[in-house]
């Protein structure tokens, strides 16, 4: 029995396998429509997240399975003071697999250490969000047909942006990847992540100027400055509009640039860009569902 807590625990071969399954689901959805008949997914969302929860639920329904769960801590026994470990043990009696989102970092790991069924980390605070990274990877793969030899711009909140950290972890295993880190000084990538890139001799550049580096990019991964990660509202208000992507800023971009965003966006991508063929963020949402389907099949060991 395996869980997925951190994207780094998946090998390159396993990611390839998940992508192959997702591609097959996209091509032949009817083949998968009853694969999880009789199976139940428990969505334990201790923090509101409409998008990720609905994606997991849609994924399970499209596999012919059922879903139970809760969408905020107040409607769970956590409100009565139950530990994550006890919740995991209890839910193991009702369901076949768990998808857990929790505001505290490491909570899904604790759940996986106590559950007798697989646990999927659906986001733990500012820490990990592996299924978002799987969605990002499928999007990149379907748009570019490869993972190697790409210049990947990561823009916005690189300090608290867990999706950015996980994507770096996943992509650094491929050859010829160059990261371009675009953020205000206050929201730079943490030193320990940069130190690990340097240790491996991994090329990256750091800049505060998006327009300057735009012509180089194959992928532009935009992120939202997340209010919930700030203890100080003044600082949030000062930084939230640091980078807003507009059609004017894209004039120097490559014609085959792929613009990704984990969503939800606030205002960091102008809606005028939504019709641009380079905008991939809504496709990314759809691909996220397919990757979650592939992951559920893998963890439930459904052939």
């Amino acid at each position, binding site marked *: 029995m395996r869980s997925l807590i951190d994207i780094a625990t998946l090998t390159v071969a396993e990611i390839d396998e998940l992508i192959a399954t997702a591609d097959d689901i996209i091509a032949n959805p009817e083949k998968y429509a009853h694969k999880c008949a009789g199976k139940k997914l428990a969505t334990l969302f201790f923090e509101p997240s409409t998008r990720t929860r609905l994606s997991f639920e849609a994924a399970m329904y499209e596999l012919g399975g059922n879903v139970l769960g809760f969408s905020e801590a107040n409607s769970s026994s956590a409100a009565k003071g139950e*530990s994550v*470990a006890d919740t995991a043990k209890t839910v193991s009696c009702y369901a076949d697999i768990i998808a857990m989102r*929790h505001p*505290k*970092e*490491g*909570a899904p*790991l604790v759940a996986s250490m106590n559950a007798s069924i697989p646990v999927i980390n659906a986001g733990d605070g*500012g*820490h990990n969000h592996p299924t978002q990274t799987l969605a990002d990877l499928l999007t990149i793969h379907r748009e570019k047909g490869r993972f190697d030899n790409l210049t990947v711009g990561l823009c916005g909140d690189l300090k608290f942006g867990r999706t950015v950290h996980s994507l770096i972890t996943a992509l650094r295993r491929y050859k010829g990847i160059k990261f371009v880190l675009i953020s205000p000084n206050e929201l730079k990538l943490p030193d320990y992540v940069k130190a690990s890139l340097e240790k491996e001799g991994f090329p990256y550049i750091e800049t505060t100027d998006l327009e300057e580096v735009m012509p180089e990019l194959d992928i532009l991964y935009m992120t939202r400055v997340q209010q919930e990660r700030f203890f100080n509202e003044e600082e949030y208000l000062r930084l939230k509009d640091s980078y807003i992507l507009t059609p004017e800023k894209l004039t120097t971009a490559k014609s085959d640039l792929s613009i990704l965003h984990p969503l939800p966006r606030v205002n960091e991508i102008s809606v005028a860009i939504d019709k641009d063929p380079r905008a991939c963020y809504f496709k990314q949402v759809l691909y996220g569902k397919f990757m979650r389907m592939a992951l559920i099949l893998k963890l439930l060991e459904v052939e």
Partner: protein
Amino acid sequence: MTVNEIKNGIVLDHITAGKGMEIYNLLGLDKLDCQIALIKNALSRKMGKKDIIKIDADIDINTDIIGYVDPDITVNVIKDGKNVEKKTIDLPERLENVLVCKNPRCISATEQELPHIFTLSDRENRVYRCLYCEAQAKD
């Protein structure tokens, strides 16, 4: 200064001078009833000066704690007045309930029953990270 030899017990030698009391406290030696000698700033040919702890009882000690604080320490096991085993300590791969995670967003900050577990993430720089949230251990 003379401290008698011990008959059955443990001698922690080559403790970096000044760290003896920290080791004493972390190992909870204050809770033992046997004779214990903590020698500070003993002369050492190799180190100049060092701390030594002699415990006059055959007890199990947590070498993970020692390895984390000062991996150069040697542990000598004394039986019938003879040094029967000399152990060198390596940096432990995992520390349980030795350090406390100081990240307020970590699950271990909320759930008091959870053991505080740290794993060695960078041997060269002796960096430990919380198993749950991966925050770096801070003294």
